Structure formats: C-alpha cells, structure tokens
C-alpha cells in the first residue's frame, strides 16, 4: 500500500505498524517525532499503531533555529 512520508509517496507492506516502519529505515527513533495524519504518536504507541493506505506520516525533529 502507499503512504506519504514527509511529503513523498512510499510503498509499505500491508499491516505495517509504526514501530516496524521506523526500524526499517535509518531514522534514529530517539530523536524523531512522529506525526500520523494530524496527531503526534508517542513511541510507546508505535507498535500498536497500524498504518493504513493513504496515511500521511511526518517525521520531524528539533534543529537549531533563532
């Protein structure tokens, strides 16, 4: 199925949960904030959260700024 990750279309396996999805990439789970559609999903909820077709995932983190 297709989901949007940081504005780009990504193909993931059906039934994929957020925990597996994060661990499949190079993303450091300790520094990432995960926004699914419009709400933040905290890391202790990742494995229980199953992705659906068309979901919008934003992976963000704090950076230097003025």
């Amino acid at each position, binding site marked *: 199925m297709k989901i949007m990750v940081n504005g780009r279309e990504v193909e993931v396996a059906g039934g994929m949960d957020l925990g597996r999805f994060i661990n499949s990439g190079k993303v450091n789970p300790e520094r990432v904030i995960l926004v699914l559609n419009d709400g933040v999903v905290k890391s202790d909820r990742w494995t229980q959260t199953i992705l659906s077709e068309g979901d919008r995932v934003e992976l963000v983190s704090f950076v*230097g*700024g003025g």
Partner: protein
Amino acid sequence: MEDNFILGGKEFTSRFFLGTGKFGSKEAMRQAIRSSGSQLVTVALRRIDLEESQENILSFIPEGTTVMVNTSGARNAKEAVRIARIAREAGYGDWVKIEVINDSRYLLPDNQETIKATQMLAAEGFTVLPYMHPDLYVAKALVEAGAAAVMPLGSLIGSNQGLKMRTLIEVIIEEIDEVPIVVDAGIGRPSHAAEAMEIGADAVLANTAVAVAQDPVLMARAFARGVEAGRMAYIARLGKERATASASSPLTGFLYDE
C-alpha cells in the same frame, strides 16, 4: 544587583536569550549557551532527512534551560499553530515563538497572521512570544490576544544592522506595560544589545551574530555583558543629550598666567 524578571510565569536572572541556529557544531552551541548565561533558547522543528541519522540537538542544551520552539517555516497562522501543537504533543513544553513569514527576501513577519496565531495558541494554554514588526496597534492586539511578551524586530533577521526600528520600539516600550518587550532580530553587536536595553527593553534575543562569530563562545559572553551593561544604564538613568558642550571640570579657579 538583583534584577530578575518574570516572563511567562518563570523567573529569569539573565535577560539575554539565544537562538541555536547556524552554529558550526552542536558542541560550540552548547558552550555558547553556557558562556552566555542564557536561560532561554529557541529551536526550530523540521522534517528529518530520512537518509541521514543525526544527533538530537536537545541533548546539547544545558539542563534547566527553557527551550522555546519557533514556528519558522510557517506561512500563516494555521501552520504556526500546527508546529506549536506538534512540539507540545511530543512533550517539549508549551513555550512558542510565533514566527509567520511569507517573504523570503526580507523575512518580515506577517503581523495579522501573527495576531491570529497568538490568539489561538494562548487560548490553548501556550506561553506565546510573537516576533513582530514594531507597530504599536499590533503590539496592543498581541497583548489582548494573550501574548506573554512582545518581540519587535530590531532590523531584518540575520542582517546585523542593529536597532533600525529604534523609534518604533521606543514607542512600544513606552506604551506597553503589561508584558515584557524583547528585542529580537538584527542585533549584530554587543553594543546593539546594550542599546536595546538602554532604551528600556526587558530582554534581547540574538542568534546569527553569536553563532557565526569566529569564536562564538567568547561572542556569547560579550553579548551577555552588553545586555547587562545596557540594563544597568537604563536603571541608573542616562543623562540627556545636548547640542552644546557641558564642561566636566569646574569653570572657576583656572591657573592663568596673569
């Protein structure tokens, strides 16, 4: 001299706030925060690069420092509100610097959208510090909207031009008593920071001038001293400017030859 001030319900002993952008390394940033004595720093929220694993900037910010997320990148109130909510939901507190910018050449804040975002976020319990173009009516509207401080720009972001907006900032300082006035943006030298404090600003926020200095750690300290010097001068009351000279030494008892 005890001269603490209250902002957003917190007591601060330092009146110098530091942005964390543009530092050559996170370690330099950490040391600059320490040497500045700053108790409030700003950070931004960005999409991560999925191909690159980076360090967490928050782990380089000294413990006890208040971290305020800015809404940079937001082009309207709605986007600013979204950034603030994400930061809070992620567990990083409720201090937010509103920065709504549409124009990429001058990076001037959109005052109307800034008022809207301030209203929405203050109503949700955020401690809101809006970055604004210095306009008295807008400053009043921001106070009315629930801002914890008003942050007029000294000059264009990152321009190092100092207090180009001085007269308009003085008007805001004179007229707004309800919340602290923090001069933000364009402060390029410790003397600019001192000048902002001399005219009665409650605090100064700087970033570029410190971060891009050859020695950012030393520059951070220089800015902190500038802020302190200006604050002391403000409290001590500066003398009036005059068009003609006024002798410092007595004008009697001269040692003339005759």
